[in-house]
């Protein structure tokens, strides 16, 4: 009896560990899915936009600590993280990306350069040391619904945040006029232009929105882990794999693939060493992609 309940709680906790990873991966991947899936732009600096969000949260927390509103700051930090990453993305699109829409492989190289510059800038502004924002009391510690089960509050918060953001993205992409414009632009730029959609503006906002989502991902991530100048670059390959694995243009695919990869990685980590878990997860993803290059979920269309 005691045995089964230990097994059960462990399984539950393991599932939760996977859910936390899933939340972060999905938050990262949503932004990338919009940028890469909808616009075909490969933004290697996506991770750095996540770092922007994380550092914004850090700054806000220091500020909040000094002015005594530590318990309320996190909502503000989320908004600020989104806004700053959005603005930075808007700027990047204006300065660089829009010149490269016809050369997707070149955006990859140029944005890699951008990520180097951003990393060095972080290093000079915030120092090389990993930082971690002071958390309000209600975000630390854990929630215990039953003995033996500790669900970290920050993890729960990230989970809720992920649900809210995903729902928001779904509303925006599939239930708003703006979403129709974005999808129209990506499917046929010329026609979209012809029916009076300002495609340039749509591009810019879409890109900035993707970056803003990365900013939120960063704010969420830094509450459960930490932030350094190169934090974002640790996630970039995984995030790209999530998007590609899910079938680039499909929101549902991105969610499913983030879930699969996160649970696989987290579950394997429980069974073997961390590095082997990573190797096996990645190898499986790559092999499946080789067999099914269009990703898990994609629509067959008449060419």
């Amino acid at each position, binding site marked *: 009896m005691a045995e089964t309940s230990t097994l059960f709680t462990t399984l539950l906790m393991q599932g939760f560990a996977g859910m936390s990873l899933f939340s972060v991966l999905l938050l990262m991947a949503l932004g990338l899915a919009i940028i890469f899936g909808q616009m075909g732009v490969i933004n290697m600096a996506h991770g750095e936009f996540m770092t922007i969000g994380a550092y914004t949260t850090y700054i806000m927390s220091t500020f909040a600590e000094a002015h005594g509103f530590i318990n309320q700051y996190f909502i503000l930090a989320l908004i600020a993280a989104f806004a700053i990453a959005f603005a930075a993305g808007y700027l990047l699109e204006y300065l660089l990306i829009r010149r490269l829409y016809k*050369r997707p*492989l070149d955006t990859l*190289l*140029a944005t890699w*350069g951008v*990520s180097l510059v951003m990393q060095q800038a972080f290093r000079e502004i915030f120092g090389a040391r990993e930082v971690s924002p002071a958390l309000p009391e209600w975000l630390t510690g854990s929630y215990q619904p039953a003995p033996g089960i500790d669900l970290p509050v920050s993890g729960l918060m990230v989970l809720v945040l992920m649900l809210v953001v995903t729902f928001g993205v779904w509303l925006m992409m599939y239930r708003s006029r703006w979403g129709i414009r974005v999808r129209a632009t990506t499917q046929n730029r010329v026609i979209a232009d012809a029916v009076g959609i300002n495609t340039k503006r749509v591009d810019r906002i879409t890109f900035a929105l993707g970056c803003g989502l990365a900013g939120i991902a960063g704010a969420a991530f830094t509450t459960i882990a930490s932030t350094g100048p190169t934090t974002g670059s640790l996630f970039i390959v995984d995030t790209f794999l999530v998007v590609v694995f899910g079938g680039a243009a499909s929101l549902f695919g991105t969610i499913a693939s983030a879930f699969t990869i996160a649970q696989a990685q987290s579950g394997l980590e429980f069974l073997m060493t961390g590095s082997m878990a*990573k190797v096996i997860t990645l190898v499986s993803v*790559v092999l499946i*992609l080789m067999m099914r*290059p269009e990703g898990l979920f994609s629509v067959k269309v008449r060419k």
Partner: protein
Amino acid sequence: MPKKLLSHWITAKNRSDLINLALLALLLLVVLPLALDIFRLNLVGKYLTFAFVAVGLVLCWGYGGILSLGQGIFFGLGGYCMAMFLKLEASDPVSTAIQSTPGIPDFMDWNQIKALPWFWEPFHSFSFTLIAVLILPTLFAYLIGVAMFKRRVGGVYFAIITQAIALILTVLIVGQQGLTGGINGITDLKTLLGWDIRTNSARYILYYINAALLLGGIVFSRWLLSSKLGLLLVALRDKEERVRFSGYDVANLKIFTFCVAALFSAVGGAMFTLQVGFMSPSFVGIVPSIEMVIFTAVGGRLSLIGAVYGALLVNFGKSYFSETFADLWLYLMGALFIGVVLFLPNGLAGLFREPRQTWLLIKHTALMLVAKLRPARLRPEGK
């Protein structure tokens, strides 16, 4: 048909190519060895091993349109094969007598491994090692190529997947340190068939072997590009469907080119190990792989010789600036990537090949700046 081939070679374009090749040979074989002391020359030798990768990338990325972000995989495999042989030679039972298991590499002993793993065994043989350096990475590239190109995966997806493979290989090497030396890599390599590779004379000889191999590689690539395969690559980049519906198995052409690029990288990796004296996972991963693409982009993705200069210049810059302005260097490097991609899609070679265009570029930029500044100044007077 030698006469015909020759006449085919010496068209106007080829003549300038030949002159450029001769200049490069002069630089690598005469000027640099005379101008630099052995320490600097050894560094140049190291940079030139990256040039192998860059030349391969000109073939597969510049001409074939296949952007691989995983050339570090092949560089690393070639380098590791060579390193395994040298490590075994350095780990003879006499010099490792103090280990708990003499005769195996020191890092295995530290990891409590009691016997040489099976896949290390054949690396006792130098001829096997040479073959492995050439075959193993090429075979791996072949497998990746078959899996990807036969299913028409290309472009961005190929780039991302090669990048993921580079990541996997790094994690694997670092994670299996008892078998691979882990993050430290395979270090303390001393002799090649009893010949001390750390002496100055050895460094000179290795430098020349390296330079000669590189020049040979360029000549081979030049020949490849002037063959029908070269034409096909250009055709492929432009209209892949047309090539396919002219009866070609496009996948095979791509696989072949990718394999050639991998082979070049592997030779570069092996020469790296010989000249630097060790190999580590930091040459396998994502960052070095992308850096090597940048060398190619800087030199000019369509220029075999430009790729060599690209590798030399970026590395010189890295070495020079990181000594004097360490922090500035990363900004410069980033700016270099962005600038080259934006303004010099054909890299430095583009500058030399189309001086007129360069002039136009400068003129346009200047005009644009003036145009941007002028209204700002005039605005108060206007509306």
